């Protein structure tokens, strides 16, 4: 017994390392980012407040680019709005079309921390449970999809970014509706892959990729990116596309948190 204790005492540095390395490994190998405690992520009160302070300064960077993107977006929406108005005019008598309840609710939030350099990237937003943000809500900005809320504390929330291999987003080609999953390969924050497409899919370079609305987070039709090239995976029957993402992940400041009011109902029926 004494010998054992002496052995421990002599190798104390090693055993300290072993114990702490084991603790780290346990944390490391919890696979599911949704199951971790909010304390392990950047949405906790301490990290959140610090990031909020620093974003008060850095929030002014890159505003010219954002302003331009916003104007383009407003232009598109204006155009679409006008078209829809004209169509609606034709149905003006049948007022039943106006009674469709609003399924999605949009809320503005500010990004207070963002990373694009890690293998797994997350963002932190300055809105939390108190503002009605819940786990599973989708996040987008004027250019396109950004990610899904994975953690909320009372004042902050953490978003798992499209630039994170743990997120597989259900997306489709706008023209043909063929769907697959969007996955990031960890290399370039401007590109991702659209995987699991059937081989016979018709496509052109430059085709737009949008969200499908499956999975009850994103509404259908949020822009994601455009097809750059196709890659033939010889080992299976699927095709992959390299996608240029519309979202400038290095320059995100203000985002929309999208709440699907029917989410719980949709999830229930999918179980």
């Amino acid at each position, binding site marked *: 017994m004494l010998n054992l204790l002496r052995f421990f005492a002599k190798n104390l540095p090693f055993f300290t390392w072993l114990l702490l390395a084991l*603790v780290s490994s346990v944390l490391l190998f919890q696979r599911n980012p949704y199951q971790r405690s909010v304390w392990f992520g950047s949405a906790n009160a301490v990290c959140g407040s*610090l990031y909020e302070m620093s974003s008060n300064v850095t929030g002014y960077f890159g505003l010219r680019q954002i302003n331009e993107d916003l104007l383009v977006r407003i232009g598109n929406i204006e155009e679409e709005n006008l078209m829809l108005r004209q169509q609606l005019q034709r149905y003006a008598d049948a007022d039943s079309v106006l009674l469709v309840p609003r399924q999605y609710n949009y809320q503005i939030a500010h990004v207070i921390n963002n990373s694009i350099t890690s293998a797994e990237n997350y963002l932190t937003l300055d809105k939390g449970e108190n503002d009605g943000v819940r786990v599973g809500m989708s996040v987008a900005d004027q250019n396109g999809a950004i990610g899904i809320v994975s953690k909320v504390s009372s004042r902050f929330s953490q978003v798992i970014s499209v630039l994170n291999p743990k997120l597989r987003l259900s997306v489709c080609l706008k023209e043909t509706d063929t769907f697959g999953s969007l996955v990031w390969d960890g290399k370039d924050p401007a590109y991702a892959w659209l995987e699991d497409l059937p081989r016979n899919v018709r496509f052109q370079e430059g085709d737009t990729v949008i969200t499908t609305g499956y999975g009850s987070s994103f509404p259908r039709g949020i822009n994601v990116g455009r097809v750059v090239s196709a890659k033939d995976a010889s080992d299976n029957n699927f095709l992959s596309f390299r996608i240029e993402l519309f979202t400038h992940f290095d320059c995100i400041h203000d985002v929309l948190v999208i709440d699907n009011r029917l989410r719980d109902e949709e999830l229930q029926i999918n179980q």
Partner: protein
Amino acid sequence: MPALIALLWIVISLFAQVLIFNHLSLAGGVVLFYLYMAVKLPVELPRPLQIFIGFIVGFILDMFSSTPGLHAFACTTIMWMRLPLLHMYVVAEDIKNGAPTLQKLGFETFMRYLISITIVYSLLLYLTEAFTLFNIVSFLCRVSLSVILTFIVLMAVEIASTRR
């Protein structure tokens, strides 16, 4: 007093890492500024305490980047290995207390010591990260660029703090 200064350094380098250096990257390579703590922590501190400090620093970094366990593992391990690495170049009797500095070790030895810590740490960090995502090109890119950037910045800080 030296302990207080060491603590202050740790806090400052954590702030600098989280708020500045994490946001500046060159093709995936990042300046790992907090390694300054692993380089400069006084050698006479009990080794278990050094390892524990490494764990805490890593854990805090993980909180900020939402990667539980990643930095904690790498920091714990580098703190365990720092003295063996130091003693590869310096006889243990020559440096009994205080921080290993440029002045005490001399230019060449300090450079070797610094580059060994940077290389070992970058390998540890990016290999652990590779459990999530492995891609040989980006791995090599990240390791080599991080080593070079970190080495340059830490060497600059050390030289600047010696000239007084």
